[in-house]
């Protein structure tokens, strides 16, 4: 699995947000993007996932060498991309367990594998539920409907564990989590992490990176990556803020 972002420019309603993002992420790696509000971090995640509100004006996003920008969001997902939403959408009336099973089966079908029946799927889901420390009554509710902020984030991670993507993009998964929930989510992500997949985390806070250790840390500002380093860069940011960096790169 390899994701290459090359000179990516994107706009919403003709307002440019991304102005030349370059980033390469390979299997077995964990990357983190930090940056001030409005720097384009969440836009980057939505553009990669194919949100229709954004227009790519220049550049490419290659997944295993294939430009995915022309693909519908579901095709990107079926090829192994997963976005854990910053604000997971509530879908009243859609039963969480059915939703998860249908999504899982859609992926199996895409890869030419036999689908699971509800009983077989139940075995799989129980094991994943335990990893995010959720009760099974949680499956009987509607997707994210009436969930607390922390439950929504855990539901995103549950979906990630079930769909087992090659590339996971976690958009501020840590925001809105208390210390216990953060630990649970981080443990689940660390369990998921393998030499066969890659993770990109977008976060405001260094504290997440104490739990999920990144191999690379990038700082985004004004729609591009202005600095890259290892986990020590995050510690520096925690200590000094973004100002010094913004000034030093002009």
């Amino acid at each position: 699995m390899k994701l290459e972002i090359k000179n990516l420019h994107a706009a919403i309603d003709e307002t440019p947000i991304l102005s030349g993002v370059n980033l390469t992420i390979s299997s077995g790696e964990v990357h983190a993007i930090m940056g001030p509000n409005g720097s384009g971090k969440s836009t980057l995640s939505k553009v990669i996932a194919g949100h229709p509100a954004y227009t790519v004006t220049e550049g490419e996003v290659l997944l295993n060498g294939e430009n995915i920008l022309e693909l519908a969001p579901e095709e990107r997902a079926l090829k192994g991309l997963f976005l854990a939403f910053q604000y997971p959408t509530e879908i009243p009336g859609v039963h969480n367990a059915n939703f998860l099973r249908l999504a899982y089966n859609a992926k199996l079908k895409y890869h030419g594998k036999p689908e699971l029946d509800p009983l077989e799927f139940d075995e799989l889901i129980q094991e994943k539920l335990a990893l995010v420390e959720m009760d099974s009554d949680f499956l009987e509710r509607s997707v994210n409907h009436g969930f607390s902020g922390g439950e929504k984030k855990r539901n995103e991670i549950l979906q990630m564990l079930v769909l087992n993507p090659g590339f996971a993009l976690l958009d501020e998964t840590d925001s809105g989590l208390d210390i216990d929930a953060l630990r649970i989510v981080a443990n689940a992500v660390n369990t998921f992490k393998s030499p066969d997949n890659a993770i990109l985390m977008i976060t405001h806070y260094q504290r997440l990176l104490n739990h999920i250790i990144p191999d690379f840390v990038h700082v985004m500002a004004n729609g591009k990556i202005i600095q890259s380093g290892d986990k020590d860069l995050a510690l520096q940011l925690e200590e000094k803020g973004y100002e010094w960096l913004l000034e030093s790169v002009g």
Partner: protein
Amino acid sequence: MLHPHLIEKETEHTRVVQVDQDQTIEAHIKAGGSYTILFVQSGNTTLNTRFILDEGATLKAIWISHHIEEATQNIQVEFKGEGINANLSGIARLTGQQKLTTHTHLIHHQPNTNATQFFKRIIEDQAVSEFQGLVHVKSEAQKTDSNQFNHNLILSDKGRAIARPQLEIFADDVKCSHGATVGQLDEEQRFYLQSRGFSEDQANHILIQGFMDEIFDIIPAQLDPAKYRHLLYA
């Protein structure tokens, strides 16, 4: 003249009524009685329903409309005692030139009663939904809690939904609300589903079924809600 269906004190009844011709149904639920009734309406029909609720009564009534032409539902509920709970809900999927008119009229006579109205419509082609809901709270009916929702999902350019909520409140310590929405499928919800691997068509389908399932989920399991889902699932 039809005699009202009597629900005796402290008893529970569950009933399904198929409506394929004009009908008038009255029920009087005595103190502490509980009544669950499901109407399944079709064709070119008018259904008049009137419920009289005594102290501590519980009413759960659901109106499903399918394959109608031009149909009308007149719903009247009288809250004659304290501690009453009434839950009224309905779902319709209207296509072609179909038109469904729903009039609800709730009269809260006594204090401490609860009512929820939850009516949803899916409107396709040139179909029309009209919903008029009147909640009347008498001056004695303090602590009334009466909420009304009418949600319309329009899937075509020419479909129409008309919502006319009306509150007449003569008591000063009550909670009454109404909310009507008219909208299309939500782009954020669709994107969320697509990002999980569902095609646009599958996502739309899931969202339409979810919109309806909020009502079907209210139907008690003993009445086999799946049987009625199939009437509206395309």
